[in-house]
């Protein structure tokens, strides 16, 4: 045992019970010193010896050995780093204090310009992606090789720690994160749908439920009758999420056996009596339903009655077009008819889910033209419409005098995915309406307007930004108001900077641009 350890043992037990140990086997000057201490004053003897040894240990410190590192050195990256100091600062600021749309725009601009994030921003960007799933598709391509290397070292960043982005599709499929595998599948689906389907079919049996459902969703691109067999088999999956994903995909195939079966269940319930259509709910559960992912057992907390529950499940699985062809009514007429039906709740809920599963623009329009229901639902519907058709609804909500500007910005915020914006023309209208309200002094008392202003600064088309720049400031601003205005200015300035990254290109790569 080393002398230090014998000293430590005595120190732990106490010198009252154990004498100060002699320095055995210590030769030379240091041994002499310890012996002199031993022979000297009794008070403090143990600590005196410990002090001498401690100083010696300090001076002769030997760093512990570590097993050799198994981590590779990060690969060199052919993409240059974002170097401009102002842009670096704007991206750093966006990543640190948001909003998400601004973060997305900055990252997408870096990727579109063929650049990558500077090293010091990698941890912040990876953290931002950990917090917001929507941001991940923008974070990952901006990381570069260094960022992917870093992500692989930290479990919190596993979402990005797939195979290298430069690697070929096969490597990304074999070793990639879920996001990356989904991207590989979606990409292959565009060029060779059959090969993508076979790739997925071979993999499905080994995957956990969450990944089965997520990857199945990638079949939506280029879906065709050839996909039916695979999807039909998933109707019997153990996991409800997977069955639901399969049902939604099969609705895109009106000729599929599954859709035909559901239509056959539903058709006898709908009959014409005295010139008008009458709907009945099923009287009893049909044992064949379970092959089509219909639950006969009503969930405990379900608000629908048992028969309505059955009806609703049939309705949500039938393509919406079946109703118009079968009854000869327009979507608007059908909605009017349903409102008077005994089974109104089951019908509307089924249709709402059907329209989300397979967006149908005419149905969306008709639903939006109905007297307004829940705001959140309107936002979801608007998100399904192509931009021109959305903006018709927004324009009517906005009104001639621009009174509805707060609501419309909120809808547009919900409808536009990160990276999308309203059209330049409509953005100009919204920005002008907002600027008018700010110049009128409405910000002083309208706390909601303060938030809307920030959202609009991040959301609207870049061509409208100049209307939100240099908003009037006064000396008597409250701290809250000053904050709202400087946040808006910060966002506008950052976006104007980001757009300079895209200048040399005639067409920007961000999806929201015309």
């Amino acid at each position, binding site marked *: 045992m080393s002398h*230090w350890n014998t000293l*430590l043992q005595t*120190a*732990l037990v*106490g*010198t*009252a*019970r154990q004498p100060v140990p002699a320095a055995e086997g210590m030769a030379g000057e240091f041994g002499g010193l310890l012996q002199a201490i031993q022979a000297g004053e009794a*008070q*403090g003897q*143990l*600590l*005196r*010896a*410990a*002090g*001498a*040894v*401690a*100083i010696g*240990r*300090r*001076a*002769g*410190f030997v*760093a*512990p*050995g*570590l*097993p*050799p*590192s198994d*981590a*590779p*050195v*990060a690969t060199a990256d052919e993409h240059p780093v974002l170097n401009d*100091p*102002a842009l*670096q*600062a704007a991206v*750093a*600021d966006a990543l640190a*204090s948001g909003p998400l749309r601004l973060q997305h725009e900055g990252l997408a601009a870096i990727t579109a310009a063929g650049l990558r994030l500077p*090293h*010091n921003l*990698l*941890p912040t960007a990876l953290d931002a992606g950990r917090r917001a799933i929507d941001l991940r598709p923008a974070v990952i391509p901006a990381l570069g090789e*260094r*960022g992917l*290397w*870093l992500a692989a*070292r*930290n479990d919190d960043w596993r979402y990005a720690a797939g195979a290298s982005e430069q690697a070929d599709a096969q490597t990304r499929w074999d070793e990639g994160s879920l996001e990356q595998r989904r991207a590989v599948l979606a990409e292959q689906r565009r060029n060779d749908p059959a090969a993508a389907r076979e790739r997925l079919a071979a993999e499905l049996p080994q995957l956990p439920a969450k990944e089965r459902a997520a990857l199945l969703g990638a079949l939506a691109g280029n879906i065709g009758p050839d996909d039916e067999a695979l999807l039909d088999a998933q109707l019997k999956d153990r996991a409800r999420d997977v069955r639901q994903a399969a049902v939604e995909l099969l609705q895109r195939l009106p000729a599929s056996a599954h859709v035909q079966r559901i239509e056959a269940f539903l058709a006898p319930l709908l009959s014409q009596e005295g010139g008008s259509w009458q709907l009945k709910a099923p009287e009893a559960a049909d044992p064949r339903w379970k092959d089509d992912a219909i639950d006969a057992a009503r969930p405990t907390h379900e608000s629908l009655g048992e028969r309505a529950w059955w009806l609703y499940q049939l309705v949500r699985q039938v393509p919406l077009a079946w109703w118009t062809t079968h009854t000869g009514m327009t979507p608007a007429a059908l909605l009017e008819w349903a409102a008077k039906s005994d089974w109104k709740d089951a019908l509307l809920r089924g249709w709402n889910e059907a329209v989300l599963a397979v967006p149908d623009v005419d149905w969306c329009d008709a639903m939006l033209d109905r007297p307004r229901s829940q705001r959140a639902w309107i936002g979801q519907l608007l998100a399904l419409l192509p931009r021109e058709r959305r903006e018709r609804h927004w324009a009517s909500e906005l009104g001639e005098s621009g009174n509805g500007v707060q609501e419309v910005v909120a809808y547009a915020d919900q409808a536009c995915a990160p990276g999308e914006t309203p059209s330049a023309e409509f953005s100009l209208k919204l920005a002008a309406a907002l600027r008018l309200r700010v110049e009128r002094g409405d910000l002083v008392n309208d706390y909601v307007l303060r938030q809307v202003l920030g959202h609009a600064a991040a959301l609207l088309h870049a061509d409208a930004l100049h209307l939100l720049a*240099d908003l009037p*400031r006064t000396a008597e*601003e409250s701290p809250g108001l*000053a904050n709202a205005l400087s946040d808006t*200015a*910060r966002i506008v*300035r950052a976006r104007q900077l980001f757009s300079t990254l895209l200048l040399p290109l005639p067409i920007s790569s961000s999806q929201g641009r015309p």
Partner: protein
Amino acid sequence: MSLSTEAVLALAPDDASAKAAKGLLAPAKWPTLGYSDDAVWGECQGSGSKPYQTQVDLTGPVFRCSCPSRKFPCKHGLALLLLRAQSDASFTAGTPPAWVAEWIASRREKAEKKEARAAEPAAAPDPAAAGKRDAQRWKRIEAGVQEFARWLDDQTQRGLASLGSEQQQAWGAMAARMVDAQAPGLGQRITQAAELIGVGEGWPARLLDRLGRLQLIVDAVARRESLSPATLADLRTALGWPQDREALLAEGERIGDHWLVLGQCTDERDAKLVERHVWLQGRASGRRALLLDYSHGGRGFETAWVSGSERPAVLCFYPGHASQRALVAELLADAPASSGPAPDTADEWQRMARQVAANPWQPLLPMVWAEAVPARHGDQWWLRLEAAPQALPMQLASQEAWQLMAHSGGAPLRVFGEWDGEQFAPLTAWALGAAAGSAPVWTLAGVRT
């Protein structure tokens, strides 16, 4: 001199100031922005009708602003340098306007006066009176230390294993007793030792190490008559005996050199007291120096140092063996650059051993590792040294550690930091083979608590 965004943000007295400064970056807010060789200035439109006049003397950098903020530097000063770093083109070169020129001139004049004053022989203090004061202080310290020695012996008789959190109060009282006995350095060491009790695996060994070194101070006080002047000076420093600044500037060892700022850190000591370490290395002398400053109430520090930059100055070192702590005696406006940078020491371990041998009570030692790789192993951060399998346990907040990892990418960096005998705290990192005086890729940010 031109500073990077990170270097400017590192000058901010707190996060709120940095954030506020970032909000002032629209060039539209600055009707005038100008620069000359040694100054940057601008007028910033605030909420009032008259814009604030903000200026920075680049020889510091030293800030001045007409705003009423008590923060130093204020958000306007920081924003001005951020703008300079980020949008060069917004500034016009020219002769400084009167409000800038006058300030710069008055600063130069003050500096000259100070030099002239320093050249005058200081009024000789009354040696008899000083000697009497010293003797009184030694008497108090000796009485306190004797009591402390008995107390220490008591602890070891009962054994360290019997210690627990309930002893904290008694240790705190002993620390306070040492402050009363005019030995605040002992008080601080006792407090630090008390914090080790029961914390983490192997705490008794760490505690024994501290207590052993405390015993050596106790013994040295008793033997003070037989100590050499340098050892006596080290002992006085360890006891926390304040150094008379004027006397030090008059008598201390002076070294003029181009000083490379190896790194710096700020630590929160008490609620409102912030301690700053700035580590320098002389290009020609190879000498390493520590500038230790304190700031109260978030006011920040008057002179800012930029890690990785070099500055000609005369430093005045505290007395003692292998003394590290120094004061700036004189900042030289411009001196001819000497040839070649001081090479990294061949063996930091040798340097460390010599430092410990010369003065066993120095709490922190600076270390430069020419090729080191930060790594995560187990649940601890490590700095792998050169090609050896050896590594130093690294003390670093995880956010900072990931930044350092991002810069390394698994490849070596040149890393500077503080070694406390147990843990290495990195402060600065350069790319491998970066030229002397080049900007580091990473510096420790923020105030450590």
